[in-house]
C-alpha cells in the first residue's frame, strides 16, 4: 500500500510565531511585562487581525473566549476579526456576523407568526424571537390583567407583518430571545420606514431613540437604531407624545393607520434614510450625532432633499467622516 507523508506546516503564520515567542519566556520575565498592552492591545494594527485557523497564543496561559477554539495547547481563532483581551480571556470579535443579542438590547422586529399566548418575531437573530402575551402592554392601562379574551384578540393587537420595537428580556435554553414591550417607548411602529444595516454598525448607546429636530421636516424625524441592525426612520412626534405625557394616545398604540404626513415630512424621512444608507454602505458606525451632522451638511450646502447624488455623497463622506471613497 501507499503511505502518506506528513508535510511540515510551511511557516505562513509569521504572526503566531511572533506572538508565541514572547510566551516562551521565563515566568518571572512574564510577570515583569504584565503591562505589555501592545501585545494584543487596542488599535488597528495589523497583528490584531486574525483569520480562521490562525494560532493566537498558548492555552496554558490564556482562556479561550468567543470566536476561538483550543487545539492541542493553542488558542486558535475560528472567525476573521480583531483580537480582544480581557485579562486572561482571549476572544476574537468577528467583523461581520449575525446579531448576537444581550439582555437589555433594543431591537426592532417583525411579527411572523401568532401562536398560543405568544408572537414569533423575526429580529435578524439566529432564531426567531418570542414575544409573550404577558410581556406586552395592552390598551386600557399598564396594570391591566390579561384575560382569556385578550388571547383570542391577539391578532388585533399585533398581526403577521407588523413591525415593533422591543427590548430583549431573557433567553430561552436554546439561545432564542424573549422580548418585552412593557414600556411606553416600545410597541408597534408606524409612520415611517424600515431599513436594515449590518448589526456591527450599531453600538450600544445610552439611548437608541433619536429625534432630529425641525429643520428636518415640519415635525422633525425620529430614528430608532435597533441593535439587531434594523433601523426605523419615521415622521417626528413631540417629546410628550413619545414618552406617554400629555397627548399620548394610549388607545392608538396598536393602531394600523398612519397619521397624515405632509410631503415635507415624507421627504425628510427619506433623506435621513438615504443618509443612513450611504453611511452604512461604507461601513461607518452609526450614531445620532453623525446622522444629524450629515443632515446639517445637506442643509448647509442647500442640496435637494430626498435622494442624494453620488458625487454629493462622496463629498459628504469626505467632509463629515473624513474618508475618501474614490480611492
Amino acid at each position, binding site marked *: *500500500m*501507499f*503511505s*502518506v*507523508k*506528513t*508535510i511540515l*506546516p*510551511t511557516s*505562513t*503564520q509569521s504572526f503566531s510565531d511572533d506572538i508565541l515567542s514572547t510566551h516562551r519566556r521565563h515566568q518571572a520575565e512574564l510577570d515583569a511585562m504584565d503591562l505589555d498592552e501592545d501585545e494584543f492591545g487596542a488599535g*488597528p494594527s*495589523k497583528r*490584531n*487581525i486574525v*483569520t*480562521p*485557523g490562525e494560532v493566537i497564543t498558548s492555552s496554558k496561559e490564556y482562556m479561550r473566549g468567543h*470566536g476561538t*477554539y483550543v*487545539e492541542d495547547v493553542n488558542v*486558535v481563532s*475560528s*472567525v*476573521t*476579526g*480583531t483580537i480582544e483581551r480581557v485579562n486572561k480571556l482571549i476572544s476574537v470579535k*468577528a*467583523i*461581520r*456576523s*449575525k446579531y448576537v443579542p444581550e439582555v437589555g438590547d433594543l431591537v426592532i422586529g417583525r411579527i411572523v407568526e401568532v401562536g398560543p399566548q405568544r408572537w414569533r418575531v*423575526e429580529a435578524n437573530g*439566529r*432564531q*426567531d424571537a418570542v414575544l409573550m402575551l404577558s410581556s406586552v402592554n395592552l390598551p386600557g392601562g399598564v396594570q391591566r390583567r390579561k384575560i382569556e379574551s385578550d388571547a383570542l384578540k391577539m391578532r388585533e393587537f399585533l398581526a403577521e407583518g407588523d413591525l415593533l420595537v422591543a427590548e430583549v428580556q431573557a433567553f430561552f435554553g*436554546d*439561545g*432564542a430571545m424573549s422580548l418585552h414591550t412593557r414600556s411606553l417607548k416600545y410597541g408597534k411602529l408606524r409612520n415611517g420606514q424600515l431599513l436594515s444595516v449590518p448589526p*456591527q454598525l450599531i453600538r450600544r448607546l445610552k439611548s437608541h431613540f433619536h429625534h432630529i429636530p425641525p429643520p428636518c421636516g415640519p415635525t422633525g424625524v425620529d430614528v430608532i437604531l435597533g441593535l439587531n441592525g434594523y433601523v426605523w426612520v419615521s415622521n417626528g412626534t413631540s417629546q410628550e407624545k413619545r414618552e406617554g405625557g400629555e397627548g399620548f394616545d394610549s388607545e392608538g398604540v396598536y393602531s394600523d393607520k398612519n397619521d397624515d404626513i405632509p410631503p415635507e415630512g415624507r421627504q425628510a424621512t427619506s433623506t435621513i434614510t438615504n443618509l443612513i444608507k450611504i453611511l452604512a454602505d*461604507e*461601513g*461607518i*458606525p452609526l*450614531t445620532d*450625532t*453623525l446622522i444629524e*451632522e450629515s443632515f446639517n451638511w445637506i442643509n448647509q450646502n442647500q442640496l435637494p432633499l430626498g435622494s442624494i447624488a453620488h458625487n454629493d455623497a462622496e463629498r459628504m463622506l469626505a467632509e*463629515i*467622516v*473624513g*474618508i475618501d471613497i474614490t480611492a
Partner: protein
Amino acid sequence: MSSSRIEILNDGGLRHDARRPYELRSTSFQLNTHPTAEGSSTVTQGLTTVQVSIFGPREPRQRSQASHDKAIINVEVGVVPWAQGGGGIKRVRGDKRLQEIGASIRQTFEPVIMTHLYPRSEITINVQVLSADGGILPTSINATTLALISSGISILDYITSISIGLYLKQPLLDLSFLEEQDLPNLIISCLTNSNKITLAQMETRLHIDRFEEMLNLGLEACKVLKIEMELIVKEQTEKIVERMNVKSIISSNASGMNIDE
C-alpha cells in the same frame, strides 16, 4: 493512450492552455459580492467562476428539520444557463451531478463549521456557477470557504480544494474541462494548517503508485491557494476595521463644531 483530440502535453512540456504541469490557472477572489447575504464571495479559477452566498444562521424554513443541538446545513447548487460553454451540465437545477456536488460540499464543510454554536438554526450555502470550465467542485469549495469567513460563522480552518490529473506519469494541477474529460483525476480538499484531508474524490482509476505523489502535490497546491486567500481576507478586514474606527475622528469633529458655536 487517450482518445483525445487535443494534445495534453506538447513536446515543450506545456499543456493545451500553455500552462506548465504544476501551474494553476489564474485565480481571483472577491469577498462580499452579494448585497443581502450574510456572507458571499466570487471565485474565479481560469474560466470557471462560482459565486457562493451564505444565508444564516437563521430560523429553519421547515421547522421539522431543526436539530436541537446544532445547526443544519443546506447546500443548493445552481448553474446559470449560459455557463455551459464547455461545461457539460445540461440542466440548470436538480441535475444528478449538481446534487452530487452539493452533497460533496455539505460533507466537506459539516465537520469544519462549528455547528454546535448555532442550535436550532439553519445555514444555507447557495452555490451559483456563473461560468464552467472544469473544476466546478474545487472552485465551489474555495468560494464557500471565503463566503463562510466573510459571514462570520465559526469554522476550524480554511478549506481549499484542487483537482489533480495524471497524464502518463506526469501529474497535472488544476484541470480545465478538456483535460478533465480525458485524464484520470482526483479532487482533494484539505484543512491547510493541520494537513487533514476532508475530501478525496476520484471517479476514474489510476495506478496506486502515482496516488501518493498526486496527493502530496495537491496538498502543496492547497496551501498556495490558502496563502492567496488569506492575503485577500486580511486586506479586506483591515479596510473594514479602519472604517469601524472612524468614530474617533467623528467625535473630535463634533467637539470641534461645538467650540465654534
